[in-house]
């Protein structure tokens, strides 16, 4: 009977909790996120934020594209205050769709480097990820590697691994190559790299590293934090993979390694704009910035200022200083180039 009452109780609780919070006046301390990031570590950060400020954090997690559509459809009735995406390209797309508003604060401008935020404050980055070359320690010497452009060389035939071009990280990498080498150069590069691949693109970044460790190919294109996830995996096989691969930051004598951000922008119809700005300030502030390298193995906004032994072990690197808003502007171009290159 007691359990019956309990479950009955929780059913009522849920249905009323959902109803109740809507009847609270808008100045009740809360902020609603639509987030692409699935990390559980983020929830812990939000808890800390609530503890520090008393502002409750509500979250809907889904893909950025779906969330952008949802905000568009909901319009001024949208409960969303902050849209969080894992890529600058998506934030620019949201901005272009007209669902973000300019939000500025002195703190944000100080905490977020200029190339990692929108000029008018439509969005701000709060973590940095670098897309690098992951190589087999057994078969490849770092001295054999140099730049992204070098991957187009026929000497890599049958040796490269990369995931599908429908992945936004690949699109942003290609967008940066378009920005630096022009569309023609990028098209040649994509076609040549596709021809050098050991197998058609499939799976996740981690799968590319696993294939390098297994000997299917020698060099993979992947984001750095996935190495961190493999190193700290509860699965011994993943840790074995991490042992076998090395991290190489390309283009160090040139423009630097390609970087991207996770970031957020205040939604146009936000009813809690001040709270949303506070949360952004918290995520870009020192407490959260110290957390990210430890929990998700992403770089902080100041890529060199971390005590994480793992991130330090990869060595200092030069990051491409391209304004990340460019990645968004060139995204559509990149997708077309990939399709023409038969890089699926």
């Amino acid at each position, binding site marked *: 009977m007691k359990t019956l009452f309990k479950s009955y109780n929780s*059913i009522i609780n*849920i*249905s009323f909790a*959902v*109803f109740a919070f*809507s009847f609270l006046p808008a100045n009740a301390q809360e902020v*609603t996120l639509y987030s692409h990031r*699935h*990390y*559980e570590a983020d929830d812990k950060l939000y808890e800390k934020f609530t503890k520090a400020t008393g502002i409750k954090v*509500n*979250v*809907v*997690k*889904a*893909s950025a*594209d*779906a*969330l952008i*559509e*949802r905000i568009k*459809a*909901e*319009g001024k*009735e949208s*409960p969303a205050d902050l849209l969080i995406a894992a890529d600058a390209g998506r934030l620019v*797309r949201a901005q272009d769709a007209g669902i973000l508003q300019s939000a500025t604060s002195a703190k944000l401008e100080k905490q977020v480097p200029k190339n990692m935020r929108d000029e008018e404050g439509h969005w701000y980055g709060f973590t940095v990820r670098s897309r690098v070359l992951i190589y087999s320690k057994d078969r490849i010497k770092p001295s054999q590697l140099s730049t992204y452009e070098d991957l187009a060389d026929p000497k890599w*035939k*049958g040796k490269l691994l990369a995931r*599908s*071009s*429908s992945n*936004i990280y690949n699109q942003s990498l290609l967008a940066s190559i378009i920005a630096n080498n022009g569309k023609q150069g990028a098209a040649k590069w994509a076609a040549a790299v596709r021809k050098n*691949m*050991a*197998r*058609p*693109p*499939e*799976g*996740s970044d*981690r*799968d590319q590293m*696993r*294939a390098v460790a*297994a*000997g*299917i190919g020698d060099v993979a294109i992947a984001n750095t934090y996935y190495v961190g*996830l493999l190193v700290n*995996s*509860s*699965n011994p*096989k993943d840790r074995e993979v991490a042992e076998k691969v090395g991290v190489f930051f390309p283009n160090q004598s040139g423009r630097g390694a390609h970087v991207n951000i996770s970031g957020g922008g205040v939604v146009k119809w936000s009813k809690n704009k001040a709270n949303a700005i506070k949360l952004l300030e918290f995520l870009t502030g020192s407490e959260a910035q110290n957390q990210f390298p430890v929990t998700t193995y992403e770089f902080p906004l100041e890529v060199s200022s971390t005590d994480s032994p793992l991130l330090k072990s990869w060595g200092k690197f030069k990051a491409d200083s391209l304004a990340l808003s460019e990645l968004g502007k060139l*995204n*559509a171009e990149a*997708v*077309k180039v990939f*399709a*023409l290159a038969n890089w*699926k």
Partner: protein
Amino acid sequence: MPKGLLNINNQRFSSFWWWLSAAFIAVVLFSPLTVVLSSLFKAPGEGWELITEYLLVDYILGTIIMTLGVGLTALFLGVGSAWIITVWDFPCKRFFSLALMMPMAIPTYVMAFGYSFVKYDIRDPLMLFIKNNWGAVIMSQSNEIFNYGLAILILSFALYPYVYIAARVGFSEISGTYIENSRLLGRGLFRSMFSVGLPLARPAIVGGLLLAVLEVMNEYGAMTYYGIETLTTGIFVSWTDLGDKDSAVRLAAVAMVFVLLLIAIERLLRGRAKFHAHRSSSNNLSGPTRTNAGAVIAFLFCFILFTVSFALPVINLCIDTLHGWEKSKLTDLIQGPLIDSFIVSSIGCLGIVIAALVISYAARLFPTIFMKSITKLCMLGYAVPGAVVAISILVYFSGMGSFLSEFLGFGSLTSLFFTLTPAGLIIAYFVRFMTPALAPIEAGMIRINASMDEASSMLGRSSWGSFFNVHLPLLRFPLFGAMIVLFVDILKELPLTLVLRPPNIETLATTSYGLIQKEERIAEGSFPALILVLTGTLAVLALHILIRKRIVNK
């Protein structure tokens, strides 16, 4: 006025209500999909040229290979095991008759994940061997073929239960005398399957097969996992990569045409034959046959099928759950995702079954082309990928919401539907899952002899009276069956739930998906996945009891 005439008028009036409600449901279910269909008449987006020139052929080819591959494999596994269990006697038969349904409780992405070891421990070493002996080009090609094969197998493991259940129900309807006659005439049990079992159980089997094939068309997670391109993955490419929603919706319309074709083929396969019940004196086989060799083969077939489609992936899940045991939070999981899952699944499956009943009964009362097309329209939602249904519903209801608030001064419909309550999500389930409810209920309706309606009506019962006293009792098995299938379907549902849920609502599916697929935090994600599978298995158990009862009660 003679009494009879009044009766007829009454009947007409009460019948009209069925017509009206069916039409209403159809309008609610179909109108969001007009967002998809209308795209065919709009000028295509700028990505369309790129798609038709470089991608569309691959999408269609991939779709055909996968639907055909999984369709045939699931047909073989489902019908084969159902026939074996119906006519043969072998050890553990009762256990297998239940156990072979269980894979239905495993979402495809969990199944794919449970078999991830094949990729790393079997395929990669094999590919390495091929590379060392025949070079990188051959390896690359073999890799692609291997992936297709693996994806077909894994999806078949997850989806054959749809065929199996349909075939069991279908076979149980066949009078045992037919099979015995076939055997008396010198046909073995195996050949009898083709000459008696399959033809008589055809509507049921084809219905189950259709569900499985539609699931394949809709699959996104497993396809991208193996690098296979289908119309559904193409929809996501054009929507998320090209940022061209119009082209995405256009592709969805192409997929819908594909499905209409499949439904037409199903009708064709069903043929003109009418399949009324054969409720003759001897219902069951007088006794299943037992030969030693047959028993061994039957046992092995069922044992292997059960192991690969259920035991193996679930054992994998259990091991992973134990790995992450200290990190799992049982109470959080029960208070949040488990209860949320239960609420949406229960409301969804109850509502959908009631709506399906109304539609199929109205179609029986009014066997007009109009009613038939209404039934078909309601089934379209199953053909459209979940994410597209989600967007259509958002666009449609927010459009209606702003219309209502602007012209009629209504409150905010959008926030009522999507922020305050999961109403929008549940309507989306209606749009998406009407087919698994309508298919068995329709098949059940067809099996009720038309003379029953005539008799009931002649005895003075109104359409309501006939419905509650004649049809409902006869339909109770397909009804409960549909409810259980729906419950499990909604429990597993991912794309709609991800996009349309109100803030802070997590279901078992969204939780396990986030942890396993997105974060690859297998140890933590396995636990909600395991609870999801176990809950689904309990529902499947209920379905099994139902089917047994049906066989015994007849």
